[in-house]
C-alpha cells in the first residue's frame, strides 16, 4: 500500500498552485472579480432592495413581518448583529479576496503586457468599488490588500475609515490612466475610464474632498447636456431608462449586467452562477391578475411585493413628470378594476415602476422565471453624476445651476434656483428607489431627522451592525451602540 495509490487528483478543477499560468486563466480570474458586481441587484440579498428598505422611499414589505429578516429589521431599525444579512459583508470581501489574489498573481503570469495592465486596473477599480460599498455600509472594516496567510486570519483588525478611503482613491487613481475610454459592444459592462472617474468623483464626495470630487466629475460630465470625452448623454425620455432592451444606453456610466441565460434555479440563486436580476422579481405585486377587458399593461404576475413605496414618496412625486415611470399606482388600478393582486405585508398600493416587470420581460429561458429577469441595473448614470458634481460645487454657481437644469429639463421641468437643498430634493425625485437615498441621507447628515419615524438612531444607525459571526474568535469590534 504505497501512498501514491492514495493520491487522487481533482478533475475539472485546478489546484491553486498550478493555476494562473497564462492569459486565459488570468481572464477567468478577472471574471471572478467582476462576479461580485451582481450584488447590486442579484439575489435576495441585493443592495437595491436592502437600501430601499432602510430609506424613506419604501418599507420592507414582502409576504409577512418575518419575510427577509434583514430587510425587515433594516426597515424598522431593529437591525442587529444577528439579523443583518452577513452577505453584504461577506460577498464584498469575496470580491476583495479575488481581486487581491489576482493582483498577487498577475505580475508573474506570462501574457500580453497591455492586457496585463488592463486586468490589473480593472481589478483595482473593482476592489475600490467593493471597499466603497463596505465602508459605506459598515464603516469600521478591515483593510486587506493581499491574500491572507492562514496564520494571519484571526489577527486581522479594523482600519480607520480614512485609511479605507485612501486605499479606494489610490486604487482608482492607479486604474484610471490604464482603463480604456470605451469598450467594444461585446465587452460592454467592463470598467472604462469614465466609469472609474465617476466612481472616484463619488468616492471623493463621500470622503468630503469636494474640489477633487468636482474635478473628477467635471471630466465625466463635460458640458451639461453637451459634449464629454465619453459620449455620455441623458436619454430624451426618462422612462426609456427602464426599458429592458436599453442596456448600456448613453446615460449609463457604470452598469451591472444580468441575463436569463444562466437559467438560474433555487439551488444557485444569488450565487456566482446566478446571473439573474432579483430586484425585479422582489418588488412586483403578488399574484397580479387582470380581469377580462382590462386595459392595464400585461404585467408579470408573480412578484413578492417587497419595497412597497411609501405614501411620503408618492406625495412628493405625485405631480412630477417622473411619477408614472417611478411609481405604479396599483391601488388606483385595482379600484378601477383594471388589475387585482394579493396584498402583501405593509402593502401601500404603490410599487416601484422603474423595476416593474411586464409579462413580455419574463424570461423565455429554461430556469425558474422568477429568478431569471434580465434587466441590468445602474450603479452610476449621468443624471446622478450631474447632481453629484453640482453638490460637490457647493450647490452654487453657474455650472451647478446648469447641471441641475439639465436634469430637470430632460423631464420638462423648469429651472429652479440651485442650492444644496434643491439638489438633494432633485436627487430624491430623479433617483428614487435606485438605492441612493439611504446613502444620501447618511452622507448629508439628514438621516437621523428624516428616518426618525422609522426608528433610526443617530450615532448608531449610520452604519450597519457587523454580522455576528465576524466577531466570533476574531479581533473585530462591533460598531458603536449595537
Amino acid at each position: 500500500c504505497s501512498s501514491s495509490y492514495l493520491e487522487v487528483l481533482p478533475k475539472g478543477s485546478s489546484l491553486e498552485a498550478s493555476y494562473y499560468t497564462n492569459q486565459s486563466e488570468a481572464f477567468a480570474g478577472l471574471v471572478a472579480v467582476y462576479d461580485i458586481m451582481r450584488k447590486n441587484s442579484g439575489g435576495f440579498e441585493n443592495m437595491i432592495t436592502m437600501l430601499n428598505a432602510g430609506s424613506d422611499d419604501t418599507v420592507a414589505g414582502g409576504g409577512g413581518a418575518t419575510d427577509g429578516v434583514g430587510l425587515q429589521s433594516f426597515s424598522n431599525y431593529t437591525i442587529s448583529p444577528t439579523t443583518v444579512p452577513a452577505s453584504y459583508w461577506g460577498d464584498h470581501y469575496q470580491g476583495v479576496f479575488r481581486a487581491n489574489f489576482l493582483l498577487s498573481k498577475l505580475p508573474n503570469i506570462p501574457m500580453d503586457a497591455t492586457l496585463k495592465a488592463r486586468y490589473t486596473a480593472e481589478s483595482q477599480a473593482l476592489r475600490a468599488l467593493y471597499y466603497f460599498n463596505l465602508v459605506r455600509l459598515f464603516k469600521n472594516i478591515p483593510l486587506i490588500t493581499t491574500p491572507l496567510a492562514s496564520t494571519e486570519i484571526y489577527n486581522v483588525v479594523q482600519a480607520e475609515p480614512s485609511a479605507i478611503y485612501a486605499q479606494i482613491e489610490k486604487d482608482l487613481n492607479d486604474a484610471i490612466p490604464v482603463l480604456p475610454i470605451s469598450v467594444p459592444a461585446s465587452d460592454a459592462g467592463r470598467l472604462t475610464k469614465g466609469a472609474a472617474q465617476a466612481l472616484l468623483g463619488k468616492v471623493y464626495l463621500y470622503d468630503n474632498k469636494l474640489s477633487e470630487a468636482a474635478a473628477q466629475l467635471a471630466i465625466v460630465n463635460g458640458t451639461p447636456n453637451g459634449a464629454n470625452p465619453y459620449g455620455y448623454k441623458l436619454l430624451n425620455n426618462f422612462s426609456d431608462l427602464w426599458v429592458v432592451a436599453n442596456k448600456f444606453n448613453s446615460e449609463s456610466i457604470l452598469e451591472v449586467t444580468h441575463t436569463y441565460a444562466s437559467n438560474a434555479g433555487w439551488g444557485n440563486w444569488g450565487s456566482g452562477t446566478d446571473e439573474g436580476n432579483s430586484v425585479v422579481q422582489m418588488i412586483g405585486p403578488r399574484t397580479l391578475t387582470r380581469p377580462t377587458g382590462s386595459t392595464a399593461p400585461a404585467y408579470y404576475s408573480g412578484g413578492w411585493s417587497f419595497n412597497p413605496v411609501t405614501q411620503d414618496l408618492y406625495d412628493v412625486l405625485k405631480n412630477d413628470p417622473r411619477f408614472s415611470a417611478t411609481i405604479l399606482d396599483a391601488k388606483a388600478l385595482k379600484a378601477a378594476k383594471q388589475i387585482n393582486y394579493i396584498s402583501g405585508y405593509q402593502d401601500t398600493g404603490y410599487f416601484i415602476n422603474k423595476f416593474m416587470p411586464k409579462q413580455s420581460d419574463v424570461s423565455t429561458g429554461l430556469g425558474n422565471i422568477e429568478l431569471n429577469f434580465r434587466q441590468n441595473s445602474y450603479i452610476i448614470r449621468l443624471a446622478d453624476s450631474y447632481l453629484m458634481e453640482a453638490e460637490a460645487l457647493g450647490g452654487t454657481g453657474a455650472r451647478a445651476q446648469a447641471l441641475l437644469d439639465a436634469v430637470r429639463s430632460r423631464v420638462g421641468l423648469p429651472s429652479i434656483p440651485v442650492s444644496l437643498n434643491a439638489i438633494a430634493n432633485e436627487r430624491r425625485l430623479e433617483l428614487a428607489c435606485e438605492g441612493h437615498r439611504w446613502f444620501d441621507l447618511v452622507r448629508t447628515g439628514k438621516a437621523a431627522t428624516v428616518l426618525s419615524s422609522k426608528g433610526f438612531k443617530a450615532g448608531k444607525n449610520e452604519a450597519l451592525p457587523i454580522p455576528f459571526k465576524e466577531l466570533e474568535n476574531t479581533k473585530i469590534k462591533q460598531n458603536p451602540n449595537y
Partner: protein
Amino acid sequence: QTVEVRGKVIDANLSIGISGVSISIKNSTRGTTTSASGDYQISASASDVLVFSFIGYKPVEKAIGKASVINVALEEDVKGLNEVVVIGYGTQKKSVVTGAISSIKAKDLENIPSGRIETALQGRVSGVTIAANAGQPGSASTVRVRGLTTFDTYGGNNPLWVVDGVIIDNGGIGFINQSDIESIEVLKDAASLAIYGARAASGVILVSTKRGKSGKLSVNYTGFVGSSSPAKQLNLLNASDYGTVMNEKSVAAGGNVLYPNPSSLGAGTDWQGAIFNNNAQRANHEISISGGNDVSSFFLSAGTQNQDGIVLKDISGYRRDNLRLNSTHKLSKLISIGQTLAYSHQKTVGIGNTNSEFGGPLSSAINLDPITPLVVTDPTAAASSIYASNPVLRDKEGRPYGISSIVGQEMTNPIAYQQIRLGNFDWSDDFVGNAFIEVSPLSNLKFKSTVGAKLSYWGGDFFTPKYYLSATSGAAKNTFSRSSNTGLGWNIENTVSYNKSLNNHNIGVLLGQGLYIDNITSGTSITYSDLPVNTYDDASFNFSLPAAQRTGSAYTGVEHRVTSLFGRLTYDFKEKYLFTGIIRRDGSSRFGGNNKFGIFPSFSAGWVVSNEDFWKENNIVKSLKIRSGYGVTGNDAILNFGYLSTIVGGRNYTYGTGGVDIISGFSPSAPSNPDLKWEETAQTNIGIDATLLKNLTLTLEVYRKKTSGILQTITLPGYVGATSSPVGNVADMENRGLEIELGYRKRFGDFNFSANGNVSFLKNEVTYLGNGISFITSGAAGFQSMGSITRTQVGQPYNAFFGLQTAGIFQNTAEINAYKTAEGNVIQPNAKPGDFKWVDTDGNGVINDNDKTFLGNGLPKYTIGLNVAMDYKNFDFMFFAQASGGNKIFQGLRRLDILNANYQSSVLSRWTGEGTSNTYPRLTNNDTNGNFGKASNFYLEDGDFVRLKIIQLGYTLPNAIISKIGAQKLRVFVTAENLLTLTKYTGYDPEIGGNVFGIDRGYYPQARSIQFGLNLKF
C-alpha cells in the same frame, strides 16, 4: 456402503416433533432438514456421524453404525451460548464474544412485510435508532448506531453497511432483498468495530445472505398482497371556519372584513382528501431454491415487490425486482471457492418535494385555502384571464384545476401539480457480489482471498410540460430530461487465520490486507426543451430539435481509495477468561499529505463467572458473563480534496450588449489545510450477558464514546473572502448510553410463547467546538423565514432546538405593563393582549435573539422495541411494537409567512379575549410581537409515541392436507401494519428522520396497511 437412515426429532420436554432441524453428516457438506412433523430421511455410510442442530437447542451427535432408525430428543439450550455471530472477517461463538454485537437471524425477519432492510431492523436491536425519512414507498430511513458520532455535514453518521464482505459505500442498501438475509449483525462498540478501522466509528452493520445446504432441494415461496391507507388525517379548517378566522386576523390588523358571510362558504375544498389514496395496492412475491451435495451447494432466489403510495397515487410508487445466486464449491480437500451475486432493479416514482415547506404537495394541501375549488366548474370563472391566458392544467372534462388567488407563493393545487410529474420516474440497477477462494493446508490454518464489487446504474426520466400552476410556478416551455449514471466500487481482501487449542488455551489469529476503491462514477444528463408535444407519453428524444434546444451535462466522480492492514487476536482459557485485541491501519485518499494513515486499536476482555468452579449452579442466575472493551475507530466521510486549495469555476459574469454571453470566472475557494486528518472515536463499553430464572436472557451494555477532532467545515470570518468553508478537525462530542436486551421463551404444553424486548437510552453532548467558540450554527436546520431553529453548543446535544421561550399569553394590558425589569422598564411595551409573553432569558429588559434558549432535542432519548410471538397447535400470532420518546418535534406544517394559509383546527382554541387561552396566541395580520414569526417552543411538541407496528396471525395447514400436494409446509397469514399509534403529536406521524431529526414540514406519513399472505415450502 450407503445406508438409508430415517427417524424423528422431538422436543425432549414436550415429546412433539420439531420441524426444520438441520441434520448434517459430520465433516461433510451433506445434510437435510426435518419435515413439519419432525421426520427425516438421509443417505449416509455406516461410519458417518449425524449432527442434529436447531436454534435454541443443544446439538446432538449420533454415530450411525448399524442403525437404520435414529430418533433424537433435543433439549432446549436456554443459554443460547452455542449461537454463532458474524464479527467481520469471521465468526465467533457468542459465548466468547467480548464486544457489543447485536444479532438478528433470518427467523426473526420472516414474513415481516418491510420494503427495505432498515425498516426490518427498526426496533429489533438495542442501540440503533432508525426513523423513516418519508412514508413514500421505497424511501430510505435514517439509521444511527449509538446516537450521533459526528456532525452530520457529509453523512458521516451513517453506519457502514457490509454485505457478505462487500462494503456498500454508494447508492445505499435499498437493493437488498429481505428474504435473502441469513443474519444481520450490528457492531456497536469500538472493541468490535476496530476491525473496520477508519470507516467504522458510526457503527458497522454486517449483512450475511443465505447459502445453500447440502441435501434435499428446498423450495420456499412467500407472497402477500394487500392495501394501504393513511393512518391519520389532520383536522384543517373548513371554508366557513376559515372565513371566520381570516376575518378576525384582518380586522385585528386594522383591515377589512374579508368574508362578510363566512358560513355561506360551507365546507369548501378538502385538499387533504384529494391527495390521499385510501386503497394503495401492495404485492410481494419471493421464491427461493436451495440445495447441494458434497461438492457444491447453492441458494437461488427471485422476488418482486410493487407498492403504491398513499399520497398522489399517480406519482408515488415503488417497484423492485431482484435475483440472487450464492454458491459454494469444494475443488479439493484443501480448496474451496464460492460466490455471491445479487441483481436488483428498482423503479421509484416520487411526489418530489417531500417534507418541504416550499411547495411540497402535502404542504400545499395543508396550507391552501379551502375556498379555492379543486376544479373550476363555474364556466364564467373558468373563462377568466388567469385560466384562459395561461397553460393551466385541466381535468379529463377540460375544466381547469383551481388556482388559489388567496394563498400564493409556492403553494399550488396538488392535483394539478400531480399532472406535471406524470410518467416521471427514477430507476436503478445494482449488481452486488463477491467471489472467494479459501485454501486450508492445515485444518486450523486458512488463507482466504475475496474480491467484491458493487456495480450500479441509475438514472431517471423527467418530463415537465409547459404549465401554469400559479403566478409563481410555471414553465413557458416543456422540458424532457434523462440522466444516466454508472458507479463502481470494488475491493480485494486477503486474510490468513489460524486457530489452535492447547491445554484449554484457545487462540485465534487473523491477519489481513485490503484495498478499496469506490465512487468510480460517471454520469450524463440531457435536456430537450420545447418539444412539439406536451405530455410524458408523447415525449421522445427522437424528435429532431435544433441544437439550442438540446442541452446536456456530464460529470466524473472523484475516487475514494482506502488501503488497509489489519489483525485480530482472540484468546480464551476454558471459555472462562476471554480476550480480543484488534489493530487496523488505514490510509485514505481524502486526507492531506501530513496525515494519510491512521492506526485503530482495540482491546476487550471477558470473564464468564458462571464457568468458575466456585459458581454454584442455581436457578436464579444460570449463566453470567462480564465483559469490557476499549478501542478507537475513525471516520473519513468528508469532502474530497478538503485539504487542498482548489480553483473553482462558476464565478461568472455577463459581458456585452447582447446580454446573453456568460463568461466563466475561476478563483480559489478557500485556503488549504494539509493537517486535515481522521476523526477519532474512542469508546469504552461494559457489558453483561446473563441467563436468569432459566428462561430469561439479559444483555446489558453501558458505554461512553467520545469523538474528537470532528471533521467540520470551519466558518472562516467573512473578511477572509473565501467562497466555501474549508474542513478542519474542530469539535469534540460525547455519547453515553445504556442498552438492555431481554429475551424470554417458554413452552406450556402446545402453547409456545416468546418475547424479545430492547430498551436503549442515549445522551449526546457536544464538549468542544474550537478555542473560544461556544456555539456554531453551521449544519443547523432552518425553517422558512425564521432562520436557524437549531444550534450546536458546548454542553448541549448536537443541533438541539433553539428559540424563544414563551411564558404564557398576556391576557390584558395590565399584565403587559406588569412584565418589567427590576428597574421598572416594561419589557414588551409594544405587545397587545393575546400576544406571547417571552422569557427575557438574559434579563436585560429587551426581547431579542440573545433571549433564545435551548428548547429540546430532535433525537429520541430512549427507544424501545418489543416483539412477542406465540403459537398454539397450528395457529401462530405475533406482534411487534416500538416506542421512542424524550424528543421534541418542530411542528412546521403551516407556512407562517403566508398570511392567508389555512390552519389546523387547533386554531379554534386561540386567544380571543381574556381567559380564553394561555397557549395559543391571538390572530392578526400584523403580528408585530412575532407570536408566529419567531422560533419558539410554541412550535415544539413532544415526540413520544408508542406504535403497534405489526400484528400477524398465521395458520399452518395440517400435514394430512399438504402432503397431498407434496409440500412440507403451507401457512396462510394476515398482517396489519401501523394499526395503532399512541402519541400527542399533532402532525401526521411522530417518526421523522433526516439529518436533523424531528422537523415536520409536511411529512409524507407512514401507511396503515393490511396484507394477506402465504408461505409454501417443498
